């Protein structure tokens, strides 16, 4: 009762306090000068990885390619070439599936470049560059988000394979190790597309150039056919193709009989790519805009 009396008696004062409130709130918020300890490079990278995941939440269509393409390739090639190349689709699938996994991850990695190309032109990168964070973290974080795509796409391929009759002789452990190797390889290859994404003007250009590289890289390899059936010069090319070594290692991990040499050769590529294209990407990134 007392309260209502007061409000009717002093309406102007009440109004004033309402209009002053946001401003006082503003001042209080600004006055906080708390500065938490600088987080490390890893924490910065994880934060940018989280940003990449949020993007998928808002544009789920971008996952469509990643999910549908591998299903299409697995089913198509198994039934198209199986009878001709291996006598039966079941035998061919045993041979083809690890290769299709490699192809899927290699194809998916080009989205790193396409996505970055659109993303980097936005003003928010000005803010990132003006912040006291680990400089490569926006790039590495985005690639970390892509690792999730590789894993998702790979799992789908394995599941489709299981449905069609593929049986990994090394069981779950072999498959999991293969997934790890695929992610490491995809991460290394991602640097190449990051560089392309930084150099080229449009996402379309990144796409076109990337396909020009990726088509021969995947087809001139041991993914689809045994290289022994190829002419000599092609066999030489296949032997130098990093994808070939990746596929050999994957087959070894999933079907058994993997050698240290195979693993070493398949890991050499991502290490070299990161060492060469990582610093190059950072140079280009700093100069961008």
């Amino acid at each position, binding site marked *: 009762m007392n309260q209502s009396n007061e409000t009717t008696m002093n309406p102007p004062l009440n109004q004033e306090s309402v209009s002053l409130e*946001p*401003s006082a*709130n*503003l*001042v*209080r*918020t*600004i*006055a*906080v*000068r*708390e*500065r*938490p*300890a*600088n*987080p490390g490079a890893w*924490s*910065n990278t994880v*934060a940018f990885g*989280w*940003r990449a995941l*949020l*993007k998928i939440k*808002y*544009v789920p269509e971008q996952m469509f390619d990643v999910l549908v393409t591998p299903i299409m390739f697995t089913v198509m090639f198994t039934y198209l070439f199986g009878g001709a190349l291996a006598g039966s689709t079941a035998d061919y699938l045993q041979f083809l599936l690890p290769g299709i996994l490699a192809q899927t991850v290699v194809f998916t990695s080009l989205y790193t470049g396409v996505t970055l190309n659109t993303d980097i032109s*936005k*003003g*928010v990168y*000005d*803010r*990132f*560059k*003006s*912040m*006291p*964070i680990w400089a490569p*973290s926006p790039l590495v974080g985005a690639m970390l988000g892509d690792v999730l795509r590789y894993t998702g796409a790979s799992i789908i391929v394995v599941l489709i394979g299981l449905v069609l009759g593929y049986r990994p002789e090394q069981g779950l452990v072999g498959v999991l190790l293969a997934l790890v190797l695929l992610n490491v390889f995809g991460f290394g290859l991602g640097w190449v597309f990051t560089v392309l994404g930084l150099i080229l003007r449009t996402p379309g250009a990144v796409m076109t150039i990337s396909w020009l590289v990726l088509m021969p890289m995947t087809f001139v390899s041991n993914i689809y056919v045994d290289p022994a059936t190829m002419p000599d010069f092609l066999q030489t090319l296949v032997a130098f193709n990093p994808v070939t070594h990746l596929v050999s290692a994957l087959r070894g991990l999933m079907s058994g009989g993997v050698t240290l040499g195979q693993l070493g050769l398949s890991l050499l590529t991502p290490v070299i790519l990161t060492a060469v294209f990582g610093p190059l990407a950072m140079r280009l990134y700093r100069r961008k*805009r």
Partner: protein
Amino acid sequence: MSSQHELAIQARQLTKHFGTTKAVNGVDLNVRRGSVYGVLGPNGAGKTTLVRMLATLLPPNSGQAKVLGHDIVTEAHHVRSRISLTGQFASVDEDLSGRENLILLARLLGFKGRAAKARADELLAAFDLADAANRQIKNYSGGMRRRLDIAASLVVTPDLIFLDEPTTGLDPRSRNQVWDIVRALVAEGTTVLLTTQYLEEADQLAERIAVIDHGVVIAEGTSRELKASVGSGVMHVQLQEPEQREQARQILSDYLLTAVHPEPDPTALTVQYSDSSLATAALAELPKAGIVLAGFSMGQPSLDEVFLALTGRPPEPTRAAKDVEGAAQ
């Protein structure tokens, strides 16, 4: 020594070339700590390039600058840990919601999980954005976007904030909100460097103003000093009869002791004055001499008029002449 410590920004002959274009061509700048400093200039004058250099985004071709006592090239990381930048084009992620943007920045600056969310919500409430917190920024209005952009610069309150054209394209209400934020920031001890195309904005907020054109500072001083060289206001006089214009020009110029310019319109005159009460008194002389007024307006000199006074030519690239008749007071 002590005077150096009082400077938030100290730039010497800062220069940036893009090919043959000299975007910034030997700029000196001294910005006192805790003040608002205005960089005034038309589009393409080099304001954004200057800010990008000072915010460590762009290395200068020559010259040097210290921001909060640290060199912008050799100690860039120290500079970055104490500044914030709100760019001319939204420096937030348009695809994410306002809240997600602030949480991301809070996490990057070291707030952990729950603390990052708390700081984001605190900022959203303070900037009157709580209702729009979970909406993507691409669906924000211009004013909301600007406020979020500034909030994003205050996740950790910086010692120095760069605001690159913070009110360009905003409606008057949103502009006033931004001005309130700037005033609140300075009151809390943050130094503000803002660029603007509007003399009024620099006049309202800035302690000192540098006018730049073609990458060069063409005038520097307090708003009062600049106005002394320009005249604090402009009066447009519209007559009924074109024949009376010469007589009116004579009366006004005798009374105000300044030049009165005829306009292309044969019934119009423009006067730059430094004392508004004197100007209105001069205006009152016209009816006494039998001159019929069709109308008049008084207002701040526009940027074009400042440039005309300082350089003897309109700013380039030429824009449609802006009139401030609306602000007749």
